[in-house]
């Protein structure tokens, strides 16, 4: 029975909550949304605790057939099966969580709860809550799906609520002759669709080339596509390894979502025009979908393709990191600045993955160890960026709700009137610039120090982002919070308790991950070890 699995309920609870929030009266609808999102969070935490207790904090990998069943949580039921001539088709209802996806599931549940609290006083609150919860369900599906076609389904499901959330509650600033919310919503939708087309083609290519009559990720990982023999592209006449081709097709979708350099311009627009809580979800979990797909699917299914592409990937990563940071330095809008800082920070993930890609088939144990560490750093960066950028967006949202502007220059010395908010905003900025003891440092330090062994020159160049990051974040903080007080803002009240809840919660998590990353790393590591099967022995000593 499908309802007997807790993973089903992780999908169902937000969906149900969304529907109920939609039909319930307004006053009840917020509480319903809060209750259902909180229930989802509790359920995901319960899964976490159950596995942790049952196995003594040893999390498995869902793609590993030899994994201890207690260390993962999987549900697999047949869903769609049909035969069309010689073509057999099969899609399974195949969900699973392991050390790689569970933190992201929890992060998603947490951020949704915070977003519900943050959006408590939105206009048209019923629809808002409903869409937020449906969005949560879609993203949950992406993180849990283990059937590629199911993955694709959820990848698309998430789009609709996001499109509406940006399009309805977004900002009215005119862009290209239409309200910004419309422009940005369409841009977001079209970009993602653009990627999705390629991803579907790639998934179908894998499905038919592998000939396993299933799109199940663990099965396909046992039957990788040939790396050397390949397909000849029609019209172009170019022959390439079918694994590389499939990788490139699927990668386009992830590159859009991450977002990677030439495909990133939807992000600043979407962030600037989305309402605060939607920006939070967008930066906190939607970008992670791309990174998660890159690690789970590209690294798992196309190791050779990824390796062949790695030299280009590392170049793109460095461009992402430095280019994003350089653009931040001249932004006039706080939210846009944070958005571009996301571009920069997500580049770190690309760098880590590019380093890990070189460690896949290496016979050099050194390279293998450093590659593993870089991949772990990249994974931690997913979580820490989710926490930190969400905090930054919440902070910007607080001032935007009061002042109705996010322009950096017209503030000044606001810390005087809003000490609590200023403290948290500064905290967020410092976390984002990679201050030790906070989450961002752990990830960036691991990625930079490890990937240097594999990509010395690109990493050495990328490290200069440390200067730029510090410069743009602190410069923004200086212009907004410190310096001569602009009397115009004398009326500003400090953050209210309701606004402070998300801020403080996220700050606490950031400190926790920064000071003792072990509790997170120990969860993630086994899944990554399965992806990089080279035996990793102790580094150093």
């Amino acid at each position, binding site marked *: 029975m499908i309802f007997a699995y807790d993973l089903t309920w992780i999908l169902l609870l937000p969906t149900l909550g969304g529907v109920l929030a939609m039909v319930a009266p307004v006053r009840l609808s917020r509480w319903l949304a809060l209750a259902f999102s909180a229930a989802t969070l509790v359920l995901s935490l319960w899964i976490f605790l159950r596995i942790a207790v049952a196995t003594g904090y040893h999390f498995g990998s869902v793609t590993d057939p030899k994994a201890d069943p207690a260390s993962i949580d999987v549900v697999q039921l047949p869903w769609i099966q049909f035969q069309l001539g010689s073509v057999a088709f099969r899609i399974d209802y195949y969900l699973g969580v392991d050390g790689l996806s569970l933190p992201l599931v929890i992060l998603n549940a947490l951020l949704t709860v915070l977003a519900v609290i943050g959006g408590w006083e939105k206009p048209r609150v019923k629809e808002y809550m409903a869409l937020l919860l449906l969005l949560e369900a879609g993203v949950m599906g992406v993180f849990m799906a283990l059937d590629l076609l199911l993955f694709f389904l959820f990848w698309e499901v998430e789009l609709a609520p996001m499109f509406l959330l940006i399009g309805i509650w977004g900002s009215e600033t005119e862009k290209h002759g239409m309200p910004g919310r419309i422009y940005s919503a369409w841009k977001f939708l079209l970009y993602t669709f653009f990627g999705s087309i390629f991803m579907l083609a790639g998934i179908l290519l894998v499905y038919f080339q592998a000939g396993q009559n299933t799109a199940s990720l663990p099965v396909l990982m046992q039957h990788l596509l040939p790396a050397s023999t390949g397909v000849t592209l029609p019209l172009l006449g170019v022959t390439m390894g079918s694994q590389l081709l499939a990788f490139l097709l699927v990668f386009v979708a992830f590159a859009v979502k991450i977002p990677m350099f030439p495909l990133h311009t939807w992000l600043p627009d979407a962030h600037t025009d989305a309402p605060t809580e939607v920006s939070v979800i967008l930066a906190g979990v939607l970008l992670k979908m791309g990174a998660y797909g890159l690690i789970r699917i590209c690294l798992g299914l196309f190791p050779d393709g990824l390796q062949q592409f790695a030299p280009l990937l590392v170049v793109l990563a460095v461009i992402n990191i430095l280019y994003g940071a350089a653009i931040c330095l001249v932004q006039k809008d706080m939210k846009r600045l944070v958005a571009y800082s996301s571009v920069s920070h997500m580049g770190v993930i690309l760098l880590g993955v590019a380093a890990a890609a070189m460690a896949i088939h290496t016979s050099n144990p050194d390279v293998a160890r450093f590659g593993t560490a870089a991949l772990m750093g990249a994974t931690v960066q997913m979580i820490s960026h989710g926490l930190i950028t969400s905090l930054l967006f919440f902070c910007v949202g607080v001032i935007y709700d009061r002042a109705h502007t996010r322009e950096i220059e017209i503030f000044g010395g606001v810390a*005087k009137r809003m000490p609590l908010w200023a403290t948290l905003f500064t905290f967020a900025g410092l976390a984002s610039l990679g201050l030790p003891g906070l989450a961002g440092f752990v990830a960036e330090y691991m990625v930079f120090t490890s990937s240097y062994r594999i990509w010395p020159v690109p990493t050495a160049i990328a490290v200069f982002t440390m200067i730029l990051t510090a410069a743009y974040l602190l410069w923004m903080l200086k212009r907004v919070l410190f310096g001569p007080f602009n009397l115009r803002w004398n009326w500003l009240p400090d953050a209210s308790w309701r606004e402070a809840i998300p801020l403080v919660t996220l700050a606490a998590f950031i400190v926790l991950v920064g000071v003792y990353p072990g509790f997170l790393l120990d969860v993630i590591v086994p899944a990554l070890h399965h992806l990089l099967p080279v035996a990793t022995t102790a580094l150093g000593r």
Partner: protein
Amino acid sequence: MYGLYEYAWLILAAPLASFVVIVFGTRMADLWSRHHGQTAQDYAAYLREADPAFAAWEATRGAGGHAEQQHAAQAAGPAEGTAHVGHGGEAEHQEHHGDPYDDDPTVPYLTPWAKLSGYVGIVLMLFACLYSWLLLFASLGLLPGTPRLPEGGITLFSYTWGSDAAFQPYTIAFHLDNLALAMTVVVTTVSLLVQFYSQGYMASSAGYARFFAYLSLFAFSMLTIVFAANFLVIFVGWELVGLSSYLLIGFWINKRAKPAEERPAPASAALQAFVMNRIGDVGFILGIMILFATTGTFDFATLAGSGPHGVAQAFAGNQALLTLAMILVFCGAIGKSAQVPLHTWLPSAMEGPTPVSALIHAATMVAAGVYMVARTFALFSAAGPQAFGVVAWIGGITAIFAATIGLTQTDFKRVLAFSTISQLGYMFVGLGVAGTEIGPGAGMFHLFTHAFFKALLFLGAGSVLHALHHAMHREVQDMRLMGGLARFMPITAATWLIAGLSISGFPFLSGFYSKETLISLAFEHGDYALWAITLVTAGLTAFYMFRAFFLAFGGKGGALGGIWGGPYRGEGTPHESPVTMTLPLVILAVFSIFAGYWVGFFQYLDPHAPLLDLGKLFSDGLTWLGVALSLLGIAWAYVLYCAVGWERVHKVVEANAVLRFFHRLLLHRYYVDTLYDWIVRYVVLGLCHVAAAFDRFVVDGVVNGVASLVMELGSGLRRAETGKVQAYMTVFFGGIAVFAVVVFVLATLR
């Protein structure tokens, strides 16, 4: 066995605990009581009385100038306080639309919670200080029943970032040895004295609790560096002291820039400090990356060891790379210790409260670079001689560079800032020229003595500024508005004189031992150019220190030929500071005199190093050459500023073209700040603008271009949709006809 030492982590934990207690406990209570307690009304009443501008402003708000009436009550009790007794530069304020209470917010009285914050910080720091002194005595073998520390030190505690094997290098580990202990003593002692002193200095500051929280955070971060067992932890501490420095420089968050005095706003100075440090840190982390990539470990002991992960073995045959790595690591020290290309942040950092300047920007944090080089001394030794060469030469150049700038500055604190930069240069010379047989002792010895007398100089300066602030009701740092202060504040003047003599290398004071040792080391090392530089710098140091002393405390016509007192050029009547401020001065003066008599210092740090040979020091003619140069500097300062008077000196300089040129050059700090400003504004930001434009017009332009192309195509094609049914019908039947023709043709052909 090492029970007493094992608990040394308490020294680290104490400031962290006080930070947490203040931030989440007493400061919260302080804020809350000021917002909601009885004080809120008192406070508004006080403001109305103290400053007519506030009352006027409140009246306009009451008249409904703003829609946000409900916030009016809050305006009366803002968090950081609003009142400020007086402020300079009225005209400058008129240009801005800010409120007039920005500069240095004061409160009528401190709440009990604020006071409690201070006591928490001081008590916990007192504990840390006493404990570190206890450990110091124990490690010297003076404590019966407790053994000395083993040569490699002991690990206090450690945990890895993850239980997986891959995380083993990523270990947070703290480690205690003699080097760390010597530094700990300096840090905790100066911290304690500065915190004690701050009770008086910050007595009316609105951010009293916040200040103590930051000081505790700083002490914790600095001790993290000190106890670091590997590059990861030292980098953590490195960044955290950067953070506390940032927070403390920008402590007066709303204070304005003072263009007339070339003083930036504290917020800008803080930003500059952090970013400048980050530039050095990039080099630092690049060096760490090279070391880690080659050896696979961050651990100092492992790196220095002879195992497969030690640099000796890992870099075998590739010493050039190790040299490069160490030079890059030294970049971190350049940034943190304000050495030459990255020195501009330290003078700006003087915008922070003076106790902060004493603690962070003179005694401890800026010396972290020196400490770090000392800590990694074995790695520098393993690298090529160029590594030490770079250290020594950067130090030497910085020493004379900053000393020359110090000659002309008129800002009291800024003279001390350049003096600090110059002295840090000395320390690097000491590290660079020492060689493996002496070890890091020489540089660290100067760090040790310098910490006390430089802290004293700054705290004395703070005492002066405090007095002048009360006398003139505005912030005065310009020495031209001082003079003859020795009459008003004898304790400050006397202790300052001791410190000044000490830093000038006056015989038998602590500075004499550490500095003359350095200079003679440079000579022995055969680096005669460096030796000459350090020698000249010693003379310059003596000159500008006494220039400052005579300008501030003495003057033409004072007692003792102008040394003690003279004409006071400011307004009002300054008074000696309260005992909370003078007591630390006296204690530090004692240290400034006697710290140099620890002759076993070199050996304490490195058991293989020789004792400091006092006999050789006294008998060596070169030593006395240095002393003579210093005395010459002092004498020359006396001639110019006590016998001639600064106004006439100034006239002479202005009259002579060559002197005027050099005076301008030095006064504007060789225009390095201007150059950096230009680079940032036009090169860096220019490139960023180019990137942003590229993003907007090329990357996004292509996307939008494709979109509008499709749109154009669509709107072109929709012209086909005429709305005329007949047209549709024509096309429909035309299609049928064409289809029919095609079918027939195909059928016929078949």
